[in-house]
């Protein structure tokens, strides 16, 4: 198992990837994490989270095949959820 923030190249290997995801206000009531688990072959482990009435974020780990995690990330973005590296901004 490898463990890193984002995949560099899609390979058919099992991996664990870490992300910081943010929910716009209108997405907070939606069971987005549940949906992702159903729609894609990924297992989600939530490590820290702060979800409130008007804002929400989670630090999560997705386990699965790299390509499938990438599809899940694209799926999250399509749902309007913002997905960043666990380090947030690394460009200074």
């Amino acid at each position, binding site marked *: 198992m490898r*463990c*890193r*923030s*984002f*995949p*560099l190249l899609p390979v058919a290997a099992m991996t664990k990837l*870490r992300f910081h995801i*943010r929910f716009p206000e209108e997405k907070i009531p939606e069971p987005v994490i549940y949906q992702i688990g159903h729609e894609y072959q990924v297992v989600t482990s939530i*490590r*820290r989270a*702060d979800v409130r009435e008007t*804002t929400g974020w989670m*630090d999560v*780990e997705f386990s699965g095949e790299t390509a499938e995690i990438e599809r899940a990330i694209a799926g999250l973005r399509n749902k309007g959820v*913002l997905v*960043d*590296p*666990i*380090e*947030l*901004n*690394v*460009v*200074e």
Partner: protein
Amino acid sequence: MEKMKALICRECGKEYPTEALHVCELCFGPLEVKYNYEEIKEAMSRASVEAGPKSLWRYKELLPIEGGPTVGLHAGMTPLVHAKNLGSFLGLDELYIKNDCVNQPTLSFKDRVVAVALTRARELGYETAACASTGNLANSVAAHAAQAGMQCYVFIPGDLEAAKVLGNLIYRPKVVEIEGNYDDVNRLCSEIAGERRWAFVNVNIRPYYAEGSKTLAFEVVEQLGWRAPDQVVVPMASGSLLTKIWKGLNEFKKIGFLKDVSTKVNGAQAEGCSPIATAFKDGRDFFKPVKPSTIAKSLAIGNPADGYYALKTAAESGGAMEAVTDDEIIEGIKLLAQTEGIFAETAGGVTIGTLCKLVKQGVIKKNEVTVAYITGNGLKTQEAVVDSVGRPYRIPPSLVKFEETFGQQGAA
């Protein structure tokens, strides 16, 4: 016992060995260096500091390296200028400018953090330095890597100004322009940092890198005659600098160099990228990421890694936060140049603009010892002021024309 005890998670407190780690495996919180202050207290005195090198390495006991410094030997110990003219203009008796415009070798405060990061990176066996940057950090990493004989990769957005690209190329790193928007650059650099065994200074070396900022607190205390200022004004990008100045002040208290710390730590941002200052003013303990749009590009971090901790620091110290417009940034740059002869980059304009606001609001008072941190040199961001500084007088080579223009007394 080692002076560095461990890396410790800022969220859950789990400890890790002092390796190239930056995220807690348990809760994904950021890691920072935990020290053995009792041992440091024994090893360090005011006299030993004063007898040390004229650089930030005079505080090496409080920096995260195991041996001696090997990279960036001349960084730090920049002037603390008693800004009497600007102070008089603002109605402050004891205003000081911490002038990192003249930091060595690349004229910004980044030389501090990079000196520490690459010294530690070499201790950890790294041969390649890397960073993702829009300016000052890239310059500093490229220069220090050249001096250290390290391979160097600098990742920049594809639309960076030519002058800034040149400022990297001269040191001959591998400069990689990435096509795509800011988020694409950010994401790719995070990916690469996870893949390569490189010292990515602000990613896997970040716990060590960030510690270099503490020296801006240490030096000010020493330069003020071993006393802490009443107020500091600090520009915020990731928010790390502000938190580390506070950490540095409190470390001096821990080792007995200061009896007490009652410094108010104030944060400064540009309105076009002010997630932290906006959250503070709204009374929130969380920030909302933004898309930056400001001339202060060195502060344009819309999703700041240390934003939460910066908010916590300002609250803990009793400080405030403000944001200024692009026009106020330019006015701030001009005001500092025209009163103190210091040409700061746009981040300096943010600091001075915010200082002006905090004085006007009565947050900073006449008799308080106040330090404004100027973190970069104006020669790097000339495009920001090129249209607001006027033009030279143009005359033929004739004494008559000169006197017609300036009069007999030489006044225009």
